[in-house]
């Protein structure tokens, strides 16, 4: 089995920052495994601006933020970038198996940084009753369909949850000519940043219902309507507050879950509640030399913070490998 000094799993902002920083600290044998055919991760579909104010002191779109790291990492010859490379196995001896088109490869790493990001919570996780018609999407999936595939997945939209991606997508659907009929948030306040409430909802007069929830989804083949009901401070339904909204699409924007199946496979001690490694220090796990950074370690609000902490992960890996400051 081939041995590498440092293997990084992922190709988004966390992985790229970690790789660059480990290299700056002296690591010269780095393999980066990205499952997609491009570097950049989720930033490629986050075409809105709002990135980089802390790290670059500039307002950038997601692809622009990614671009700066892609240019930099491509210029570092010591970092081998392997695209379309999907890691299927990881064990506690830091051995990985990954698939590339036409081949299966094994590699043993002296240190590993997992930068595998996160995925979206689904309708099933927020317990919405009703039928299971077409037209129910997580907000990020709708974002991918519109921004990467050029497809508009609906015309009359209800957004469930007021996370930033949901707010951003409410604006995106509106700009693309769809009608966003409501954003429904069970909490008393929006989950997303207030600036996104202003520029994504208020700018387009999209109604926001706080302390409300969707109680049922109707429709046989395609979503036809939803029931919306007010809730009190204990999230109990308020009598006689139910009303209907006709729509063909329901977007779920109910938060993110770190994606950590591989470290779980390697027997890393996990917090089952958050799906993150139990750790006394950011980026560390119960296995020496196995680090986790970015949204896989914890869900961040800003990519700038992901970059900051992932730079630290690269430094920690370098230090573990014996490179001094």
């Amino acid at each position: 089995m081939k041995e590498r000094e440092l293997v990084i799993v992922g190709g988004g902002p966390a992985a790229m920052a970690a790789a660059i920083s480990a290299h700056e600290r002296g690591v010269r044998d780095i393999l980066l495994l990205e499952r997609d055919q491009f570097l950049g991760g989720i930033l490629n579909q986050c075409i809105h601006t709002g990135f980089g104010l802390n790290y670059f002191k500039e307002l950038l779109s997601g692809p622009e933020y990614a671009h700066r790291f892609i240019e930099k990492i491509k210029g570092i010859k010591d970092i081998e970038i392997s695209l379309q490379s999907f890691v299927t196995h990881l064990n506690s001896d830091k051995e990985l198996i990954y698939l590339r088109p036409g081949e299966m490869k094994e590699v043993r790493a002296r240190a590993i940084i997992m930068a595998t990001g996160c995925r979206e919570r689904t309708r099933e996780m927020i317990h919405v009753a009703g039928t299971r018609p077409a037209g129910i999407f997580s907000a990020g999936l709708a974002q991918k369909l519109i921004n990467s595939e050029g497809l508009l997945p609906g015309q009359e939209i209800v957004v469930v949850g007021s996370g930033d991606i949901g707010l951003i997508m409410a604006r995106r659907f509106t700009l693309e000519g769809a009608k966003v009929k409501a954003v429904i948030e069970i909490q008393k306040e929006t989950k997303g940043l207030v600036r996104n409430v202003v520029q994504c909802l208020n700018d387009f007069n999209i109604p926001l219902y706080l302390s409300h929830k969707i109680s049922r989804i109707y429709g046989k083949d395609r979503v036809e309507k939803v029931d919306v009901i007010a809730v009190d401070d204990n999230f109990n339904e308020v009598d006689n507050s139910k009303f209907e909204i006709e729509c063909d699409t329901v977007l779920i924007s109910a938060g993110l879950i770190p994606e950590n199946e591989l470290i779980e496979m390697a027997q890393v001690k996990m917090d089952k509640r958050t799906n993150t490694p139990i750790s006394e220090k950011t980026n560390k796990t119960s296995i020496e030399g196995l680090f986790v950074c970015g949204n896989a370690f914890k869900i961040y609000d800003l990519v700038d913070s992901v970059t900051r902490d992932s730079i630290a992960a690269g430094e920690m890996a370098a230090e573990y490998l014996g490179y001094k400051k």
Partner: protein
Amino acid sequence: MKKEIICIECPNGCVLSLEIKDGEIVNLEGNKCDKGKVYAVSEIENPVRVLTTTVMSEGLSVLMVPVKTREPIPKSELLNAMEKIRKIKVKRSVEAGEVIVRNFMGLGVDLVATRSVS
């Protein structure tokens, strides 16, 4: 007239308290930095936004090329701008930052690609 608006220049989301007289801000409170002041004036006189969207490509490795207006454009022009952008097709490789349409809609602002696509 008193008015409260929320600054959207950064994730802080400062609540700005404005006192407006004859269409001009005579008093401003709540901004943590100077960007808030510029935003408040613009929001009262001529609200503007950076438009980010995509244009279709033809024969390139990525189907949709992300674009933005290099500077903010009037908020009232956003939907018109989308109509125009829908008709654009990118048929050659572009670099991030490269101009797709110069002086877009005569607004004095360029429409630029935000991703390198070949």
